[in-house]
């Protein structure tokens, strides 16, 4: 219907409508925008303030904290060098072991579900660890319970045990790698090798003396670690590499060492001796091939018997050498031109010196017509005094000193004794003669052996030593510095005395020392000794050289207080024959193949 009801003018309506529907007025819009801008500006201000605060003020601290939480430091263990014998057989080596450690604070808050069972805290961890570590769960729980940041749970466990422990993923259980020292040959050369202490540094023996070389320098590495324990690539890393120790090669031949140990152990038992030593050196090089004793510590377990802690008695025990020292008297007499091997003497059983000192021979006998050679071969004290009394006292002393008595050899072993050699001025009326046949002075077994090696080496004394060479961590081998040499007596004198010594084995007191196929030169010795408790005992010895025609080795066999016989020719010489014979075969020394041309012993 044509609208009459509400006649409204459309032209009026439009604009008014528009004004109403156009929303807020301009001023209202402006205000709203201002509020928004201010709000956004405020928000941005807060944000940027926070940004500046975090990035500028706190930035470094926060970043460092985050880095710390990712950083981990691992010790890099420096491998201790090996000790090998002359053939390269391992005498001492290091193996990896682990010390398992616990952080009690972390363990307290730890819990995990294993096979449906929930384990929590120290008790739970102990339950899981006990079967792996082969330990008592209750004791373990006590160890793990507390609020200390660091306790040892187990020490020196095998790598596979640590692997098993690590797989339990107990938060707060960690391990550090340590090295354990292993001596694969048991007690072979144990007194020489020594052992290492709990920290892994040498405690005694070669391990201690060469510790600086063997030890190396441990390193450490600090890096950013991801969740899986992997290194975050491109992250912070700082490493000080570990420098491994050098490996040392000894002059010892382990087969000969074993034979020597066996032989001396058996002989000490068979003769009822208190103790005994065998020393074998290479004549030309001064290398110690074997140094064996009747009682040897096992470096794998030094704690088993503290009585064996003394190291090598071949360098630390001193005794009166007795007749073996007559070699020096003879060398001095021949060198100074007093006698030659053929000089003739009427040797009585008893001899009294001008200063009323009476000396006797070991066996009663009628007057003997002996040459110088015979006196040595028969080991006559009276004959030796008759020869030696014409050597001035100071010269006697100087020869003893030149052969190394009274001073350390400098061998690479701790606790070496120098022995005792009084000054000539301090010798009393009896001692000045007694030194001629090896009494009134004391030596070590090594010093005594060295005298014979010197005679066998053309009168040249080579310092005895144990180190043959060094192997660097990179595998390069450096031979040890050649040992010092000194000409003690002339080659002619040495040859003469060596031939005289052959008579001692061929037709004298040392016949039991003979080795089939090889010519042997040597000398028996029996000397009175005073034990630590003041009782008098006997030191019986045989020291010899083989082969006499081209000397390779010098060997000493010394027995302290043998009960079956006191004579070196009886108790010690057979052992020499056995051990030296074995060594000659082992070293591939050809048999002599020549007959000795000996000096006459009688006239």
């Amino acid at each position: 219907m044509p609208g009459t009801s509400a006649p409204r003018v459309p032209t009026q309506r439009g604009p008014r409508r528009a004004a109403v529907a156009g929303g807020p007025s301009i001023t209202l819009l402006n205000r709203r925008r201002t509020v928004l801008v201010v709000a956004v500006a405020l928000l941005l201000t807060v944000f940027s303030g926070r940004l500046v605060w975090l990035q500028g003020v706190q930035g470094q601290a926060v970043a460092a904290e985050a880095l710390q939480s990712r950083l981990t430091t691992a010790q890099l263990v420096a491998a201790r060098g090996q000790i090998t014998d002359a053939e390269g057989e391992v005498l001492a080596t290091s193996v990896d072991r682990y010390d398992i450690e616990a952080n009690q604070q972390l363990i307290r808050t730890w819990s995990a579900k294993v096979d449906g069972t929930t384990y929590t805290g120290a008790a739970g961890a102990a339950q899981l660890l006990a079967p792996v570590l082969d330990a008592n769960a209750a004791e373990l729980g006590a160890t793990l319970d507390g609020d200390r940041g660091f306790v040892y749970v187990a020490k020196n466990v095998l790598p596979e045990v640590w692997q098993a422990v690590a797989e339990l993923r107990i938060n707060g259980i960690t391990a550090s790698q340590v090295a354990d020292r292993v001596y694969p040959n048991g007690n072979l050369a144990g007194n020489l090798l020594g052992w290492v202490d709990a920290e892994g540094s040498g405690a005694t023996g070669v391990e201690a003396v060469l510790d600086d070389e063997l030890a190396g320098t441990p390193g450490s590495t600090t890096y950013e670690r991801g969740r899986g324990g992997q290194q975050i690539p491109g992250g912070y890393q700082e490493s000080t590499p570990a420098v491994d120790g050098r490996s040392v090669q000894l002059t010892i031949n382990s087969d000969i060492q074993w034979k020597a140990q066996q032989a001396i152990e058996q002989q000490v038992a068979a003769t009822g001796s208190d103790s005994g030593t065998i020393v074998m050196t290479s004549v030309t090089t001064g290398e110690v091939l074997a140094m064996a004793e009747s009682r040897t510590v096992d470096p794998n377990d030094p704690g088993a018997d503290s009585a064996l802690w003394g190291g090598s008695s071949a360098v630390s025990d001193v005794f009166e050498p007795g007749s073996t020292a007559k070699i020096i008297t003879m060398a001095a007499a021949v060198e100074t031109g007093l006698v030659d091997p053929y000089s003739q003497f009427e040797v009585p059983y008893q001899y009294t010196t001008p200063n009323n000192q009476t000396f006797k021979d070991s066996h009663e006998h009628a007057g003997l017509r002996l040459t110088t050679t015979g006196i040595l071969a028969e080991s006559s004290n009276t004959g030796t005094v008759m020869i030696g009394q014409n050597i001035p006292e100071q010269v006697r002393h100087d020869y003893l000193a030149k052969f190394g008595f009274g001073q350390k050899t400098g061998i690479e072993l701790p606790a070496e004794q120098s022995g005792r050699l009084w000054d000539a001025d301090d010798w009393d009326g009896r001692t000045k003669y007694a030194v001629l046949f090896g009494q009134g002075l004391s030596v070590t077994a090594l010093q005594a052996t060295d005298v014979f090696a010197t005679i066998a080496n053309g009168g040249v004394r080579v310092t005895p030593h144990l180190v043959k060479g060094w192997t660097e961590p990179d595998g390069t081998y450096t031979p040890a510095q050649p040992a010092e040499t000194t000409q003690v007596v002339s080659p002619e004198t040495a040859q003469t005395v060596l031939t005289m010594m052959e008579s001692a084995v061929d037709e004298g007191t040392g016949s039991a020392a003979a080795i089939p196929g090889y010519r042997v030169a040597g000398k028996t010795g029996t000397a009175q000794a005073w034990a630590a408790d003041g009782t008098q005992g006997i030191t019986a010895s045989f020291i010899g050289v083989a082969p006499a025609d081209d000397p390779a080795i010098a060997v000493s066999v010394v027995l302290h207080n043998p009960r079956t016989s006191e004579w070196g020719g009886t108790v010690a010489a057979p052992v020499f024959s056995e051990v030296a014979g074995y060594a000659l075969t082992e070293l591939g020394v050809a048999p002599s193949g020549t007959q000795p041309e000996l000096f006459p012993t009688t006239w």
Partner: protein
Amino acid sequence: MSAEQAAARAPRVHPRPSAAPSAAPARPRLRLVRPPAQARTHVPFVVTCMAILAAALLAALLLNTQLAAGAYATRTMDLRLAELARTEQSLSAELDANKAPAHLAEQATALGMQPAGSTAWLRLADGTVQGATGAGQ
């Protein structure tokens, strides 16, 4: 009016500089103007930029992924290496123990072997046997 005046004045030529051209009638002077430059499209440029950016990002991502993968691989290999080293260690320890003279002697005795005597030497010079007693029989 001004046009009329101008037209009336026109025959009179005043020698004065005038903006109006002398020859030309009062017609605006036409100049050749360059057409407005075509608005060239920016799409290829933007796409190229984005492509370079994307490639760079992708390369960085790939590189990082590679590095991370490498780190994991390194760790795995380190573990394997350690394991092998341990195996080698325990085997050589076993070997050393078995090589020990005392152990060898024990084993040989258990097998009923005897210690050998001295070695016999055959000397080529004269064909003699040296050394061991009763050797060569």
